[in-house]
């Protein structure tokens, strides 16, 4: 057996860069109330400042375990978060800080969870990859690819059965579109007309591998929509307004019983996949071009164009920074979780007892 060697594939960083589309100038004119826009700004800033702080704490060796930041991707979580009703359900992945905070979960317990403290959102038992706050509709972060799409269906099914008009929103990455559970979840959602919105955050990479090298179609989610009788929807995931408008529309349709949607939001993660990854497998121009398309300066400029005084934005920034500082204090002040906690909550009776 002779196997030929094609050296062309080896260094992904040498591939042609995949550059972002320019911002649609019409997005300034999207029919979104200024108040909402200011909230979107604040939300994005919160996610950004929080994760920057998380990164600092990681450099100080205070964050335990792994963590996956979504710096550069905040517009999606913010846009959807704002479009959701308070009792709607969110489902996220290991890259779920933003989706958690975007539902209004307080920063302190989330940060404390990253630090493995007793005052963490999950008492230190879940860690960065499993953020959950049921009281905020944040139904969990799931660290094994694919599963949570099927679970999001379940929450939507339950809403349908209970007649509550709640919608389930499920976030995941481009790489996730290639796993079996994606297919099963999309088909069932469509067949049962479930009020669920699947949001593919296409950041062009599945970990360290360019998505186009391992996916049979160009747009990993949108080009699969028709396989489930759904419309292909692609949105600029680096523009919170564009996201917000699409989110409002698909959530509203789902709420009215018109069935699921699959949205592909194009974006980029500005850092490595997880804390261990310097992200060197990406062409430098690509990273640079996407950083120049960072959602936050874009939004900032738009607000200025729309007449918001710089000073107002500064005030928001300062408020956010203050909250992040507070959260940091809260988190750092947390004690290590008591060891009894490890033996709690395996079962609904609160115990870990499997025998008499």
């Amino acid at each position: 057996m002779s196997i030929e060697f094609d050296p062309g594939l080896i260094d992904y960083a040498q591939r042609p860069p995949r550059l972002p589309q320019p911002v649609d100038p019409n997005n300034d004119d999207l029919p979104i109330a200024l108040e909402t826009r200011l909230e979107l700004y604040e939300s994005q800033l919160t996610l950004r400042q929080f994760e920057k702080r998380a990164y600092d704490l990681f450099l100080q060796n205070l964050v335990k375990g792994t963590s996956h930041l979504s710096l550069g991707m905040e517009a999606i979580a913010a846009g959807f978060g704002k479009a959701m009703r308070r009792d709607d359900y969110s489902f996220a992945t290991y890259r779920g800080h933003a989706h958690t905070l975007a539902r209004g979960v307080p920063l302190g317990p989330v940060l404390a969870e990253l630090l493995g403290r007793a005052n963490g959102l999950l008492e230190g038992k879940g860690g960065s990859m499993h953020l959950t706050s049921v009281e905020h509709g944040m139904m969990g972060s799931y660290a094994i690819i694919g599963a949570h799409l099927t679970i999001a269906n379940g929450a939507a099914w339950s809403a349908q059965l209970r007649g509550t008009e709640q919608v389930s929103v499920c976030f995941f990455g481009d790489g996730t579109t290639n796993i079996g559970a994606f297919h099963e979840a999309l088909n069932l959602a469509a067949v049962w007309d479930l009020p669920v919105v699947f949001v593919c955050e296409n950041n062009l990479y599945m970990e360290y591998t360019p998505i186009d090298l391992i996916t049979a179609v160009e747009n990993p989610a949108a080009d699969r929509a028709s396989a489930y009788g759904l419309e292909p929807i692609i949105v600029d995931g680096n523009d919170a307004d564009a996201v917000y408008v699409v989110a409002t529309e698909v959530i509203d349709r789902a709420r009215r019983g018109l069935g699921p949607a699959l949205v592909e939001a194009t974006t980029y993660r500005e850092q490595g996949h997880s804390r261990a990854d310097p992200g060197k497998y990406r062409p430098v121009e690509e990273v640079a071009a996407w950083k120049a398309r960072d959602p936050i300066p874009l939004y900032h400029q738009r607000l200025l164009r729309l007449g918001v005084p710089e000073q107002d934005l500064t005030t928001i920034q300062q408020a956010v920074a203050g909250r992040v500082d507070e959260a940091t204090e809260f988190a750092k002040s947390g004690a290590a979780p008591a060891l009894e906690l490890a033996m709690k909550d395996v079962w609904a009776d609160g115990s870990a007892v499997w025998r008499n």
Partner: protein
Amino acid sequence: MAELSYRDAVARGIAQEMRRDPSLVMLGEDIAAAGGVFKTTVGLLDEFGPLRVRDTPISEQAILGAAMGAAMTGVPVIAEIMFSDFLAVCFDILANQMAKTRYMTAGQVTVPVVVRTANGGGSRFGAQHSQSVENWTMMIPGLKVVAPSNPVDVVGLMAAAVRDPDPVVFFEHKSLMARKAEIPEGELVDRLGTARVVRPGRDCTIVAVALMVERALQAADELAGDGIEAEVIDVRSLVPLDARTILDSVVKTGRLYTVEENPRLCGWGAEIASIAADEVFWDLDGPVVRIATPHIPLPAADALEDETIPSVARIYETIRRTADQ
């Protein structure tokens, strides 16, 4: 009292619970209009309607995921995975999601799901449709595991499983489907975590579940003819495990035998044997002996399948041979 088969008892148990709790729903492949491929859900669609008894695509991950998501948000679910062998195609949802989410979320999430599945051999279906996989689920922290051996237990343990707020895997044995028993009228609710001494004895303890219980009992009868009085325990619930009942018996008899349909390695019997070898070691009067299916995939041909799953003869002979050790 009505005589019901094991298969009918499944539907009877489910119907009892669906009547009690109007939010309880079911899903699975061919469970609604067809009444299930083992006819264990006949009549449920008629009584409870297509929104509560729902046919699904062949999408086991989607089935268990839907069950979990619904259960987390207030709708308890009974999900069917047609053959227990197919737990392998949705094992992530079962073992990594349903089982772990309560713990990972520090108790925020509760998952009241019953996963029903047809388990075990004897139907000449071959290696991919005949497995006994209780140990696949017993080894996962966060899952409860039930395997009834008779129609009355099917009803009562089904009710207990449905009312339990944690995920429960409910193994229905394919070769027991036609067994019949008188079922008392009225609501039947059993308790998880309770084993039952189905035959008292003083010389040795035989623990078994599901199909192996009746074989253990028959072997015990034969042993009695030789003067060996075996105590037979139907474990019924592997998690929670009624270790007390088992250990009490071993303390009394001094000998422990497990009769396992699963292939040997890491079977549930290994766990029970290891508990006994630790906790009642000084009460043991001889080796702990496991009678299990050999560690092989199951063959299809009747002659071969009958040879591999523990038979009455093998149970009898093994105990006869080792009783005086």
